């Protein structure tokens, strides 16, 4: 069968099982948009390419399947770079297709030419510049393979316009042939044995579980392990939901704005079982004083993560789900000969910290709305399987701290890159992936202004997401740092509560808009929003501008110097 490159591309995406593309057309990708008309593939027309990228990410976060974005050359390709970098940091599988100027024009500074593969080299797992239409099915197959296997990540396929118009003979490859790419899935049995031995000996273990558990679908194994060895569990920002917050072994999040208990337990642990995590600086604080007494077992599918930041006593390269299954078997085996150490004192200590230093804020407040209260009320008044998406800033920390996460793929956020503007488009992608679940974006007023126009996309495509703006009239997180570390010298952080008018703006974009100015209205308006299913809803919650996120480990400080809510006294350890 003879096809054009463009037809072959669409047919390849279909063969790959793609159901939706987030994109926006333009000159160099025009040939591909023509056969799209005749394809069953759903296309969602975005208002900005960054939105397409974050939508693809949100879709991947929730479904575990790669999100697909398609944009034209030059400015469109550069517009999507932020989303690629975001997906790269957070190991989100994503395939981005970009148009490129004709092969013969490459290198001539042609209209809308940008060196897309060059620009995106450092923010993709791999990228391809297609030079012949005959290669398209093979490259698409390879692209999806690379994006979804090993450590997942974004990939990009750049297709010159004339290649899209070239004729090719259709085929669909059975397998990929990539001699330089063979991810290790099974952990080394000897290492797994060693890990089991350390685990049985540990008196004060902590499981430090991250996004890798979610990507690997290993939540069940994680729960089995934690219960088997009675180990408390800290879940990172990317791993929230991989272990139920309501479980008695759950300690919440570690790191800069983690719970006192998670942060302190790691500092005092004698064994750190690190699963699908990368010892990010926001978790470790000052690395030289991080978990100083702990031996480390580190399981990750990416060998380069083992020893990158912290030397592990037992490094295990492999899929964390597979490794955990083997590890659990090994522990059970070993237990026949050797008892586990007694952990009752450790668990009592953990309980004690939890009672003394819970997450807290001023709950007596009746005049101003505390942002934490909005999150708590939302969490309590939405279905169990609600998907929560956030932007970046204080509201993100309040969302991750105060929402009770009990399942994986329920929390969608920009962890590694910290991309303001992530929430709205990512929520749209999440809702497309799981239309039956309620999707709430918890956004900041600053973040909302970066990508709000995608609500037009949501309205026109009938994607009824819900948005809670925690409108504190400030770039709150930056304000907090200026208050705490720059002697309250506020520099360029004030935004105004009512410029723009978020309700009018929401309405102009085809959404329902609400404004909430007092605490007693919070639950009522959330109920109203929950009842709306035919279009997006935006609630402008006017929250306390002066609220700060606690606990906090100041940047660069040791986790031992954790600062707790002022009502809880000095903190520290």
């Amino acid at each position, binding site marked *: 069968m003879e096809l054009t490159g463009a037809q072959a591309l669409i047919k390849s995406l279909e063969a790959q099982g793609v159901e939706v593309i987030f994109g926006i057309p333009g000159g160099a990708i025009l040939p591909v948009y023509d056969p799209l008309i005749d394809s069953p593939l759903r296309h969602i027309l975005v208002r900005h390419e960054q939105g397409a990228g974050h939508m693809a990410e949100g879709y991947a976060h929730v479904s575990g399947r790669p999100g697909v974005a398609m944009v034209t050359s030059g400015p469109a390709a550069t517009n999507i770079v932020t989303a690629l970098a975001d997906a790269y940091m957070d190991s989100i599988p994503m395939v981005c297709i970009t148009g490129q100027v004709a092969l013969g024009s490459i290198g001539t500074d042609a209209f809308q030419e940008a060196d897309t593969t060059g620009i995106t*080299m450092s923010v993709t797992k791999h990228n391809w510049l297609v030079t012949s239409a005959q290669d398209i099915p093979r490259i698409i197959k390879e692209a999806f393979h690379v994006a979804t296997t090993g450590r997942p990540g974004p990939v990009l396929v750049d297709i010159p316009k004339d290649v899209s118009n070239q004729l090719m003979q259709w085929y669909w490859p059975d397998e990929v042939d990539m001699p*330089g790419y063979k991810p290790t899935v099974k952990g080394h049995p000897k290492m797994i044995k060693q890990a089991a031995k350390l685990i049985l000996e540990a008196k004060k273990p902590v499981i430090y579980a991250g996004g890798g558990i979610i990507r690997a679908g290993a939540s069940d194994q994680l729960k089995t392990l934690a219960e088997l060895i009675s180990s408390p569990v800290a879940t990172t920002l990317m791993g929230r939901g991989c272990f139920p917050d309501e479980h008695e072994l759950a300690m919440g999040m570690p790191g800069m704005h983690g719970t006192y208990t998670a942060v302190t337990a790691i500092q005092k642990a004698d064994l750190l079982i690190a699963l699908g995590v990368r010892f990010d600086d926001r978790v470790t604080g000052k690395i030289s004083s991080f978990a100083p007494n702990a031996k480390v077992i580190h399981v990750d599918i990416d060998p380069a993560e083992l020893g990158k930041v912290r030397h592990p006593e037992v490094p295990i390269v492999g899929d964390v789900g597979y490794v955990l299954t083997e590890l659990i078997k090994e522990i059970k085996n070993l237990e026949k000969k050797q008892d586990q150490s007694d952990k009752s004192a450790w668990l009592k200590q953990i309980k004690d910290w939890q009672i003394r230093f819970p997450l807290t804020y001023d709950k007596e407040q009746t005049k101003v709305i505390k942002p934490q209260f909005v999150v708590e009320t939302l969490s309590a008044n939405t279905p169990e399987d609600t998907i929560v998406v956030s932007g970046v800033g204080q509201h993100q920390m309040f969302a991750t701290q105060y929402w009770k996460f009990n399942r994986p793929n329920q929390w969608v956020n920009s962890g590694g890159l910290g991309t303001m503007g992530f929430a709205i488009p990512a929520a749209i992608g999440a809702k497309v992936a799981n239309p039956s679940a309620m999707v709430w974006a918890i956004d900041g007023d600053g973040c909302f202004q970066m990508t709000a126009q995608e609500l037009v996309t949501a309205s026109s495509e009938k994607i009824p997401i819900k948005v809670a703006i925690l409108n504190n009239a400030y770039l709150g997180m930056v304000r907090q740092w200026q208050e705490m570390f720059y002697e309250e010298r506020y520099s360029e952080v004030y935004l105004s509560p009512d410029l723009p008018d978020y309700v009018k703006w929401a309405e102009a974009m085809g959404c329902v808009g609400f404004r909430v100015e007092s605490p007693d209205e919070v639950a009522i308006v959330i109920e109203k929003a929950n009842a709306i299913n035919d279009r997006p809803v935006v609630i402008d919650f006017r929250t306390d501008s002066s609220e700060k996120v606690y606990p906090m480990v100041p940047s660069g400080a040791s986790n031992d110097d954790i600062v707790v809510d002022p009502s809880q006294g000095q903190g520290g350890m």
Partner: protein
Amino acid sequence: MKQYKHHTLSVLVENKAGVLSRIAGLFARRGFNIYSLAVAPTDDQKFSQITIVVDVQSAPLEQITKQLFKLINVVKISELDPATSCEYELILAKINAPGNNRASIIELVQLFGGKIVDIGISQLTVMLADSPTKVDDFEALLEPYGIIEVQRTGRVALAKQETSSAKLRSISGKVS
């Protein structure tokens, strides 16, 4: 010249457009230092061989090889130990050689087993292909005469035959 701690990596890569830029980009982005780099085709035209001499003061060798291995087009990395590998480098140098110095430069080149490859009125271009340390010595001894221009290739290396299998540390195909 300042002494760095150098390691030689022999990297087999797929012969695809942009491979070199991926490698160079990776080194730049992760703050690794390349001391020298040489690229050449192999007998199989699908692959090229890159010899990279890395400065392991900038990052541990393990991190460098692991990150390199994450590049999809990198197929195999071998660390070559100088004791058990043949390492060669070529130097071309244009030397100030007026009549009175000419004879002693020619003598030096002959002693090293190098070659005079170009002769001018008051300059000589000399060449030597030898181990990197010999090339260093050669360059240092030429220095006093006045080096006008110098070009070195960076080293290429292969494991030695008899003892190669035992000492050649091969880090093969495991990456995501």
